[in-house]
């Protein structure tokens, strides 16, 4: 047995063509109209859930840029989400800052954090990177509980955040205002992400994902782009975290455990790895399916959730993207007839 094996390993994430990463104009407009109109006709609690749908959608999108875009795997997204949430909460409650202004700060801090974390992560790939990010996710709640920071973080108790009112005396409820506020940010970040992946940097990321050595031979600065991907992903997750803190009105260490990171990962798989619009589908899966499972059987909710998840990955191993592709082909056939 030789000490060095020569194996051709397939890329961990299969190549997604650039165009296939987005939606057509028609579909985008229908989605937008739905997102704008639905809250007008439902109860406040459902509006809150829809807000969370957008927020988790953002977090899944961020993971999708990292994994689907640059091919790096992360189980540590919950840590970035926690940092974003705590940044917003601390700035609002201790510094009295306006909630909207805390979000860019949360994004920047998380960008820096992610960028720095990306440095040691450069040496690792595959399961090793998974373990490193996993370590980050398990360490974060413990760090937030530490006595040294208790003055700011509130320790185990966490912090209560006040919910903002609609500005300019608009006659809408707090929940509805927050929903539209979140929607605007989500759309802005979505457009930013789509453009990012279609730009020179996006192509560089995908080249790294498909073949790192070939990418570096073509002159792509592999180290820079990989760490940047971590930074951008963490930044977006941080903004999602900040929004999440405002929407839930509460931050506590145990809300940001590894379970959150695993949920976000499942969201990405269900939505389709590397397909940005799928993020919202994945987010819907991780928000609503556990509730459905609980509704079917209280004692066996975990098993029902597992079975539903198996059903989804058996039927559509490539996630919502596969459904979209099939639908597109059907539409094409209908048009021709």
């Amino acid at each position: 047995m030789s000490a060095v094996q020569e194996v051709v390993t397939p890329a961990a994430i299969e190549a997604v063509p650039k165009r296939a990463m987005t939606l057509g104009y028609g579909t985008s407009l229908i989605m937008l109209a739905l997102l704008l109109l639905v809250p007008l006709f439902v109860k406040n609690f459902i509006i809150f859930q829809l807000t969370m749908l957008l927020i988790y959608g953002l977090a899944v999108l961020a993971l999708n840029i990292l994994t689907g875009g640059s091919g790096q795997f992360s189980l540590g997204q919950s840590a970035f989400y926690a940092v974003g949430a705590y940044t917003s909460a601390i700035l609002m409650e201790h510094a009295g800052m306006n909630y909207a202004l805390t979000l860019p700060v949360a994004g920047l801090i998380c960008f820096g954090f992610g960028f720095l974390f990306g440095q040691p992560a450069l040496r690792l790939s595959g399961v090793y990177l998974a373990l490193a990010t996993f370590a980050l996710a398990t360490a974060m709640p413990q760090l937030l509980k530490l006595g040294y920071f208790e003055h700011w973080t509130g320790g185990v108790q966490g912090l209560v955040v006040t919910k903002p009112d609609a500005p300019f005396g608009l006659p809408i409820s707090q929940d509805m205002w927050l929903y539209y506020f979140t929607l605007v940010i989500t759309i802005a970040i979505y457009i930013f992400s789509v453009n990012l992946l279609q730009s020179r940097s996006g192509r560089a990321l995908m080249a790294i994902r498909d073949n790192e050595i070939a990418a570096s031979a073509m002159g792509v600065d592999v180290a820079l782009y990989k760490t940047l991907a971590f930074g951008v992903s963490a930044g977006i997750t941080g903004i999602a975290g900040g929004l999440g803190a405002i929407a839930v009105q509460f931050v506590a260490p145990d809300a940001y455990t590894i379970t959150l990171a695993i949920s976000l990962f499942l969201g990405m798989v269900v939505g389709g790895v590397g397909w940005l619009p799928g993020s919202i589908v994945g987010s819907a899966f991780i928000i609503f399916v556990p509730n459905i499972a609980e509704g079917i059987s209280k004692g066996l909710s975990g098993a029902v959730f597992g079975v539903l998840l198996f059903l989804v990955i058996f039927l559509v191993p490539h996630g919502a993207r596969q459904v979209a592709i099939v639908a597109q082909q059907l539409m094409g056939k209908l048009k021709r007839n």
Partner: protein
Amino acid sequence: MELFTNQILAGIATGAIYACMALAVVMIYQAIDHLNFAQGEMAMFSTFISWQLMQWGVPYWGAFIITLALSFAGGIAIERLLFKPLAKAPILTNVAGFIALFAIINSVAGLIWDFTIKQYPTPFGSYPFLGSQLISTHQAGMIGVTVLLLLALYFFFQFTRIGLAMRAAASVPESARLVGVNTSWMIALGWGMAAAIGSIAGMLIAPVVFLEPNMMGGVLIYGFAAAVLGGLTSPLGAVVGGFLVGIFENLAGTYIPGVGNELKLPIALALIITVLVVKPAGLFGRPIVKRV
């Protein structure tokens, strides 16, 4: 100095648990090339089966062997039913499948055997081992079994035809198929063996951590860490990694001020990552060269 040696002994004792689990993790990694997140839950379920058998009056070793056989069959069944259809799906979809399996097993075990903590017997007794208060005879027995298991696996993989076929199927499936290895069944066999080793790990760990559906949560994390530290391609590495993680964890808890029980895990993990940054394939792993 005495504190230091005592902490190392205690570390070895907990390390034996991690080594057991890490060995099962590496086994399945060799067979299927993924980390199986449901491994700990499979082991927990096996342990519950043996507990149930003992409740029905089967003696310890009888229950042990029946459980081993059932786990082996169960591992193969899971592979055939759930993961063979996913063989062509992307890797990340497979990982989602492991998480689903985790949720199902955990929830079903909770329903059948509920979440109360149960005592689990040990065949080795729990007296001080060689006069030391820190290692009990059970822990010494556990280390012994782990080492025996490691030797058995080494001989199986190095000197039997079927071991060779399994290694071939895992590392170069295409070429293995060309020389007539039934790679699909080799994967199933890998699952079966991993489930059986997991059940041994579970039955040895249960007397220490007590039996309940969530007993493997913490252990599996350390087991993964140990396997990765030792190098996922090396069963010996997994065992050494397990002991090292146990020792790290105890020393960090004792000597670094401000580190209570809560920060032990993050510090152990951080140390492992530091090691990996220097040696990316783990301590005993073979670096894999990729062809462009």
